[in-house]
């Protein structure tokens, strides 16, 4: 079956492409990237700043349940063309992944469907792979902890 979200990350390259088809009209898809309150909802982060214009910048911050900041990211906006394109940089603060260039392309498929293509370019192929492995490492830890729980119950 066709996957809704696809990732193309070729071996040895320093970029990746995320493609997703949405069951949403183009304008609504774009709004989800434009409106700070909506961005906060689906990204699960606090939006400190989101200036949707050329030479604008953005800043996100995520806290855990206890109020500790666990994730901070920021970047500059280079291009902002409603319902078409956003060009921006992305940098995770206090993390060794460098700065990425992100090119977001928004396309109308039908009146009620749309496609988002994100092309991310990293400083190097190694940095790209490290970033890709983040959720993998978290998932493995979680799976491992839960496996241990189960095994201890089986005994």
């Amino acid at each position, binding site marked *: *079956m066709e*996957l*809704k*979200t*696809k*990732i193309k*990350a070729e071996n040895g390259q320093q970029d990746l492409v*995320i493609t*997703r088809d*949405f*069951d*949403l009209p183009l304008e*609504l*898809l774009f*709004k*989800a990237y434009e409106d700070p309150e*909506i961005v906060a*909802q*689906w*990204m*699960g982060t606090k939006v400190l700043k989101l200036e949707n214009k050329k030479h604008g910048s953005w800043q996100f911050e995520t806290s855990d349940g206890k109020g500790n900041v666990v994730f901070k990211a920021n970047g500059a906006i280079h291009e902002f063309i409603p319902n078409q394109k956003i060009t921006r940089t992305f940098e995770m603060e206090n993390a060794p992944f460098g700065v990425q260039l992100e090119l977001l392309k928004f396309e109308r498929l039908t009146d009620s469907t749309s496609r*988002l293509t994100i092309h991310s370019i990293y400083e190097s192929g190694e940095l790209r*792979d490290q970033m*890709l*492995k*983040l*959720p*993998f490492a*978290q*998932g493995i830890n979680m*799976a491992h902890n*839960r*496996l241990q*729980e*189960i*095994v201890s119950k*089986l005994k």
Partner: protein
Amino acid sequence: MNLRRDVFQAIADPTRRAILLLVASQSLTAGAIASNFDTARPTVSKHLQILTECELLKQEQNGREIFYHINAKKMREVADFIEPFRQMWDDRFNKLETIMKAYKNQQHGTENKD
């Protein structure tokens, strides 16, 4: 629409992971697997069906009995590091889609009232 059976959905469930652990050391029948759990037999059968559908388990006929054994090749896919990254974005985008559909209905709601 049938649910997409991928390995990560399969191993997200603790009982299914426990089944994989059991079968990892030796091939077992459905009955032998079920005897290790307090869960009802049909529930275990459902788990076995899901694990078989996503090819983490293989069935082997031995006389009148069917044995389940682990599919090492498919298990290695779990080690593919791009898949969790893809799933993370898939989850986010699903959320985006749900939020925007609700948003659209809300807008329509206000329009109708006018």
